[in-house]
Structure formats: structure tokens, C-alpha cells
């Protein structure tokens, strides 16, 4: 009999929410988390009592504990601290972020500086645990999705996060590609499609070209600061304004009130996608400044009002889409399909705007926020099952090249090139009697060198002195199956050669990564131990309380209820043992103490009121 195959999962590691999926009986399905929800908020926190919180619980205390709550870590993963996106993101963060040793981003949480992959790993570990709870056995392999615009560093950082969480990342795939896979477009569509992904915090537009199962990302764009949370904020403002008008109190000054407003706003927004109006009901939202009975917030929000409050956001969405398509020189009529992804695409107004712009009905699954994870699961299944028609090829996400005179880039390997691959090109010196050339290895799509990511650089010296253009340098790029890039430069006259090996880096060294993985393992062991201790102590307290009750009753009975004297003595000894066990961190001692209590209890309870043991 064949051994049961190892469970495989696909993970949509989102900026605001994350999901995990698998393929079961040939059907891709979402695995609900242990609280029964399909979505796990991508939020990590350390509560005021030092407890690590991940997901829904962390999100629910985000406003009351903002400094120790990390959200939207995806905006920071794999980026340099000094980069523009990070500096932009810093303005919107409530938690502290510092610069690491390698210009990487570190998040300060509960007094510790964590690498961003460590934070993402906590979310992945939670999803892994949910999957393990679903399968009832360990899960170690996953496909994880990332935005199409992620560079090698960001992809590597996501892989590192997976490793820290105890996952072997089989493949990193693009989110729009995963969405298209979930719709089965690899088999049914040949041509261009657009994927509009409006998540909680970001809006990504991608144009893919599908050609016989090969997915080519031809354009990406969007707004990394436009998402469902903007709709929530509008509802919150509306509620705050209404309350201030009625009671003269600004609820924004109270963190507890704000947290409740945020939760209520999100709930109202979701409800208004399926009903025309909803009640917002927040009892005891605040106590008036002078004291007195707490006030309630009660109001009715209609879909029409919500659309009115957020009309400009919808217009922004269309504007951005139009811009991305324009830059890629793609007309809406060129598209074979339009896919709507993300929870926000359930909003009727957004569907209508997309329909109007593209003049076609967008494809939207029943659960638009689930399609990316489902696509990842399909890919994981295909990878292991070797279903070649669904198998995505491992490609370079962005073009690679070298900087050339004038500050431009010469691309040697275009994006979406299948790896392993190699390319060689001959360059010439740009100055007379030039003795040295500097090879700067770049990644990106921009024509100007400084807009691309510098992967590494080296010098080739000892060139023959000659007028410019006469010394020829042969530059070779080699990318192996593991994505490791080797770049070499050779003087064709002298045969002199220099090379560099570039490994995509998340900002963490291998040593750091190993240390973090060890820490993570220790933490998990300690957490498991603490849970066990806690539950044993609860059991001990309950048993001890029952035994004390029973003991007190026996003492009041004439002749100790007819019990032999050693029963009471043994019960007292069991209580003593319990007292000692409770003070030490030893599950074994607690278990033994519980057993001793449990043995004494039925004996004491058998005491009869008239001096004879009862039943």
C-alpha cells in the first residue's frame, strides 16, 4: 500500500490578511484557521502581559496596543531601510522600525529587534499550525505567493520567512498568476488578461500574457497605500462625526472607542456588500468627561451612504488601472479576461466601476479574497504531482544587466526568462587608455541604472592601454536552477577574468538565519511547555478545590463519616503535594499531584453522614 503523501499547502501571505489552501480530492479548498475563519489577519503583537499574539487576536488589540503591534510587514520585507518605499511606509507605522547592520529593516517588538522575515514567519507559522490542525499531521512544504513586482531580495526574504517558520518553500509565485491559475486560465485562455487585486492595504494591477500555459507578467502597477482600510476609515470618520454632533464628544481621543469603531466599520463595510443597510450598535462606547452613565453609539449606515463617502476612492482605483494599462500600451478591449481579486472586490460599486471601465463583466469568484491562495495550492499540487500543463516555470522576476556609460542599463537577461539560463555579451571600453572597468550587476526594468536594484559590483583591472572601444570585455551572466547568479567579465585580449556570485539576500546572513531558526524552535518548545503547565495547573486547582470541599465536609461529620483514618491523612498529603507541585515549573510533578488528588477525591466523597461510608 502506498504511503499517504505529505500534505501540501499554498499560502497567500498578504499585507493585511493571509490565507492557506490545499488541494483535497482534486479540488482546491481554503483551510480555515483554528477560530473557524478563512482569513488570518497578517498582524503580530506582544500583549502587555508579554504574550505573543498572531492573527485575529493581535488585530483586535492593535489600536489599544499600537507600539507593540506589527501589521503590514509585507511593505518592509526584503527592502533596504534607506529605500524610498520603506521611508514612505515609516510615516504610516505605529510601531518602531530601526536600521539593521546591512541597511536592512528591523522591527522593535517587546524590546527586541526582529528582522522582517522573523515577523512574517510568525504569520506563516500560524498558518502552518492551522494546516496541521486540518490534516492532523505535520506540514512542511508550501508554495507562497508574492506581488509580481517583488524583486529577488523580497522573494528571498519571503523564502527565509518560510524557512524560519519550518516550511520548505517549493516555489514563490506571483499573486496575479496564482489568481489566473485558480480560474483555470492556464488551460482555457491564450492572450492578455488583467488582474485587479484590491486587498486590505494595497491595490495591485497586473497584466498577464498567457501563452499555452506560460504566464508572462507584462505590466504591474498600483498603489501600495490604497485598500479596504481606506473604506473603513471613511466609515469611522462618519461615525465619529455623527457622535460628536450628537454628544459633543470626540471618540478619536479614546483608544478603546477607536478600536471598537474600527471593528464596527469593517463589519459594516462587509455587510453592505450583501445588504442595502446595516445597523451600527456600540453600547457603552464612552463615559462622558464629567462622569455619569456611559453613552451608546447607534446608527444606520446605508450602502448608498457608504458609496457616497467613498466615491473618490473608487475613482482613484479606476484612474490607477487606466494608468497601468496606458503605460503597458494595453487597451481594455485587448484583454481576454479581467479578474477581480481581494475582499474589496465584493463591493457592488467597485464591480460596477470595473465593469464600466472595461466594458465587460469581470470574473470574480464567490470568494474573491481566496483565489490567490487557491492558485498557490494548485501550483503546489502540480509541482509535486508533475502536472506539466499546470506547472509554472521558475523564471527571473525582473530583468538583469550591467550599468553602462551614461548611467544606463544594458539588459542581458530579460524578465520572465526560465532558469537555469545564461547570456553573454561583449562590451568595449568607453575611455581612451582605460585600464579598469567596473561591472555593476543590476536588476530591474528601468532604463536608468540608479533606478534599479544593485545586486553587486566588481572591478576588472589590468586592461591593455588602447583608445576607447578597442578593448573588448566579454560579460557572462549565469543563473543556475537555485537562482544563484554568477557574473564574470573577461578581457578578450589578455584572458584576464574576474567574477562575482550574487545570491539574492533578504538582509539576513546565513548565521543570523540559523540563529533565528534555533530561537524559533526554542520558543515553540517553551510555548508548548507553558501551555501544558497552564492547563495542568488549572486541573490541579479544580481538583484541589474539590478535595478541600470534600475534606471540610468529612471533618464536620461525626467519626469522619466512617472513613478509615488514613483516607483523611492521604488526602491532606495529596494537598501538600499539590501545593509543592504548583510552585515549580514541572509538568511531571503537576501530573503526579493531580493523580494523587484524583485518587483521594472519590474516597472522601464516599463518606456517609452517620459515621458509615456512604455510596
Amino acid at each position, binding site marked *: 500500500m502506498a504511503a499517504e503523501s505529505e500534505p501540501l499547502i499554498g499560502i497567500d501571505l498578504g499585507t493585511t490578511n493571509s490565507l492557506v489552501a490545499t488541494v483535497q480530492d482534486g479540488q482546491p479548498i481554503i483551510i480555515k484557521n483554528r*477560530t*473557524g475563519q478563512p482569513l488570518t489577519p497578517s498582524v503580530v503583537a506582544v*500583549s*502587555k*502581559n508579554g*504574550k505573543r*499574539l498572531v492573527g485575529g*487576536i493581535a488585530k*483586535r*488589540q492593535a489600536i*489599544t*496596543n499600537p507600539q507593540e503591534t506589527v501589521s503590514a510587514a509585507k511593505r518592509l520585507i526584503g527592502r533596504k531601510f534607506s529605500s524610498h518605499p520603506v521611508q514612505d511606509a515609516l510615516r504610516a507605522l505605529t510601531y518602531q522600525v530601526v536600521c539593521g547592520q546591512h541597511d536592512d529593516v528591523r522591527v522593535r517588538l517587546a524590546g527586541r529587534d526582529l528582522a522582517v522575515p522573523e515577523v512574517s514567519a510568525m504569520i506563516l507559522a500560524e498558518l502552518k499550525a492551522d494546516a496541521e490542525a486540518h490534516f492532523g499531521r505535520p506540514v512542511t512544504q508550501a508554495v507562497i505567493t508574492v506581488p509580481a513586482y517583488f524583486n529577488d531580495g523580497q522573494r528571498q526574504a519571503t523564502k527565509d520567512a518560510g524557512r524560519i517558520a519550518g516550511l520548505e518553500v517549493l516555489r514563490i509565485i506571483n499573486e496575479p498568476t496564482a489568481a489566473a491559475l485558480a480560474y483555470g486560465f492556464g488551460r482555457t485562455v491564450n492572450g492578455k488578461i488583467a488582474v485587479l487585486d484590491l486587498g486590505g492595504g494595497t491595490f495591485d494591477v497586473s497584466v498577464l500574457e498567457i501563452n499555452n500555459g506560460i504566464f508572462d507578467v507584462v505590466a504591474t502597477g498600483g498603489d501600495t497605500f490604497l485598500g479596504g482600510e481606506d473604506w473603513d476609515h471613511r466609515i469611522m470618520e462618519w461615525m465619529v462625526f455623527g457622535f460628536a454632533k450628537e454628544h459633543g464628544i470626540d471618540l478619536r481621543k*479614546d*483608544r*478603546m*472607542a477607536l*478600536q*471598537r469603531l474600527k*471593528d464596527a466599520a469593517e463589519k459594516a463595510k462587509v455587510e453592505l456588500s450583501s445588504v442595502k443597510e446595516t445597523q451600527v*450598535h*456600540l*453600547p*457603552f*462606547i*464612552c*463615559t462622558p468627561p464629567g*462622569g*455619569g*452613565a*456611559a453613552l*451608546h453609539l447607534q446608527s444606520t449606515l446605508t450602502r448608498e451612504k457608504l458609496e457616497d463617502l467613498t466615491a473618490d476612492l473608487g475613482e482613484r482605483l479606476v484612474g490607477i488601472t487606466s494608468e497601468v494599462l496606458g503605460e503597458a500600451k494595453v487597451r481594455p478591449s485587448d484583454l481576454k479576461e479581467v479578474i477581480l481579486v481581494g475582499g474589496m472586490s465584493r463591493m457592488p460599486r467597485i464591480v460596477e466601476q470595473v465593469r464600466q471601465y472595461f466594458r465587460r463583466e469581470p470574473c470574480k469568484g464567490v470568494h474573491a479574497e481566496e483565489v490567490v491562495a487557491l492558485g498557490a495550492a494548485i501550483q503546489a499540487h502540480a509541482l509535486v504531482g508533475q502536472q506539466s500543463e499546470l506547472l509554472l516555470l521558475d523564471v527571473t522576476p525582473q530583468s538583469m544587466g550591467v550599468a553602462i556609460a551614461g548611467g544606463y542599463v544594458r539588459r542581458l537577461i530579460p524578465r520572465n526568462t526560465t532558469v537555469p539560463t545564461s547570456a553573454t555579451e561583449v562590451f568595449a571600453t568607453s575611455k581612451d587608455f582605460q585600464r579598469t572597468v567596473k561591472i555593476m550587476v543590476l536588476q530591474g526594468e528601468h532604463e536608468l541604472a540608479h533606478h534599479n536594484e544593485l545586486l553587486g559590483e566588481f572591478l576588472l583591472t589590468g586592461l591593455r592601454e588602447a583608445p576607447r572601444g578597442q578593448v573588448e570585455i566579454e560579460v557572462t551572466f549565469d543563473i543556475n536552477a537555485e537562482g544563484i547568479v554568477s557574473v564574470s567579465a573577461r578581457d578578450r585580449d589578455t584572458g584576464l577574468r574576474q567574477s562575482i556570485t550574487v545570491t539574492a539576500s533578504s538582509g539576513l546572513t546565513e548565521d543570523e538565519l540559523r540563529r533565528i531558526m534555533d530561537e524559533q524552535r526554542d520558543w515553540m518548545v517553551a510555548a508548548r511547555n507553558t501551555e501544558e503547565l*497552564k*492547563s495542568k495547573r*488549572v486541573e*490541579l*486547582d*479544580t481538583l*484541589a*478545590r474539590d*478535595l*478541600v*470541599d470534600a*475534606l*471540610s*465536609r468529612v471533618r*464536620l461529620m461525626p467519626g469522619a463519616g466512617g472513613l478509615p483514618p488514613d483516607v483523611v491523612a492521604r488526602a*491532606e498529603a495529596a*494537598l*501538600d503535594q*499539590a*501545593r509543592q507541585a*504548583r*510552585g515549580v515549573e514541572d509538568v511531571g510533578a503537576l501530573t503526579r499531584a493531580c493523580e494523587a488528588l484524583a485518587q483521594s477525591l472519590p474516597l472522601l466523597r464516599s463518606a456517609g453522614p452517620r459515621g458509615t461510608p456512604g455510596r
Partner: protein
Amino acid sequence: MNALRAKALVEAGLLLRLSGDMAGAEKLFARALELDPGNARARRLLGRDGGPEQGADTGWNLAAPDLEADWGAWAGPSAPGPVEAPLRESVSLPEGTGMPGDALDLIAEAHRTQEFGLPDTFTPAGGLPEGSEVESLLRGAEDLLALDDHSGAVELLRRAQSLAPENPRVEALRDRSERILVSMLEARLGDLNRMPRVRLQPDDIIWLNLDHRAGFVLAQIDGAVSFDDLFALSGMSRLDTARILAQLLDEGIIAPGE
């Protein structure tokens, strides 16, 4: 000496009464009268001379009517039967080796090992000028602790700490009292892994007499978060959260759940 101590206890009792802890205040007045039977003020405040003291109305927000009651009694066995009368109503402070026979001593035991360096011969007024308000408060707190009124003691110690924030003795005593009080309240809640649920309909909830903090905690209870999680997401101290949860449970607003 007894007369002086009784005077200090009366002062501390008045402060407790101001904060709404009538039961705690009464205990202190009774203790003052016990030490100095001639203390007319204590007698009057106890209503044993025919009428309450003028100006006793504190304007206390009745939003949390029973919160400040005797937590020791609250934290006791939950279903007292007729044969339980001889049991102590509340938990003894774990001094020395502790008293056998009460399960809650087990809980207190854990804290005894973490007693922040309190000396055996603890004198609450140590280092403070005789007759100062802090001294009165400490004496009052000590007496309340002896009477198992941890809630009242914590109230006085908080006040003392606001007057003498750097005093290590005040801090240590307060810390210890709070820990014991938290333990008692947690014992009242039972297994902290249980997920409480709201027993009332939304229309009935608005008629309750809660403050906004209790309202916040109540809003988080959805049958999917445990007591333990609620401590984490309340944004309040463990003691305040435990008090609110115990109040909600006691008033039948929430059920402990599975």
C-alpha cells in the same frame, strides 16, 4: 498608641469610602473601634451612635457596584452548601507556611515565592514620618489585608503610591496585594482557556449599568476568544480586566463557556 492607630485607620477608611468601597471602609472603622473603643468618630461612621456622618455621600459612580466588594469572599468556592458554613469565607494571606485546607492557598502559594523582598518583620510605615497620610494608608492597608480585604487594600495602596511613588515598601506591598487579588479573581473565572459568551441580547445590554471599559471588554466577548485572550486584548492591566470579567460573570451578563 492604639488611639493613634485607630485614628489612622479611620482616615484610611474614609478614603476607601470615598472611593466607593463601603465594605472595606466599614471593616477599618470596626477595627479602629476594636483598638480604641472610645473613638467616637469610628463609632459614628459605623452608625453605632444613631446616624451616619455628615457628608458621607461620595458621589461614587455606581457603574461598578460590587467590584470593590470583598474579593476574597468572591473568589471562594462558588456553590456554598449548608455544610460549608465552617469554611473560611475568604483566603488567608500567605504568611509563614500558609494554612492547610484551602485550595485558594495553593494559588496564593505561587505568589508567596515571588514576594518582592518584603522583610519578615514588615513595618508598613517604615521610613515614613509618623502620622503622615502615607503612613495612615499603609496601616489601613495592612489592617485590610489582615481582614482579607485585598480590594480595599489595593485601593489604599494605590493612593499611597500616588503620594509616595518612590517608596519601595509601598510598591512592594501594592504589587503583592495586586497579585493576590488577581489570583483570586482568576480563580473566580475558573479555567482561563474557556471562551466566555454573552448571555444577553443586544437590546438588553444597553439597559445594564456598565462603564465604557466594561463595555469594551463586553464587546470583545464573542464566544471565540478565551479569558486568557481577553487579558491580552483588553489593553488594561490584568487586575482591571479580571475585575471587569468577574463582575460580568457575577452579574450573569456573560457565561464562562466551553
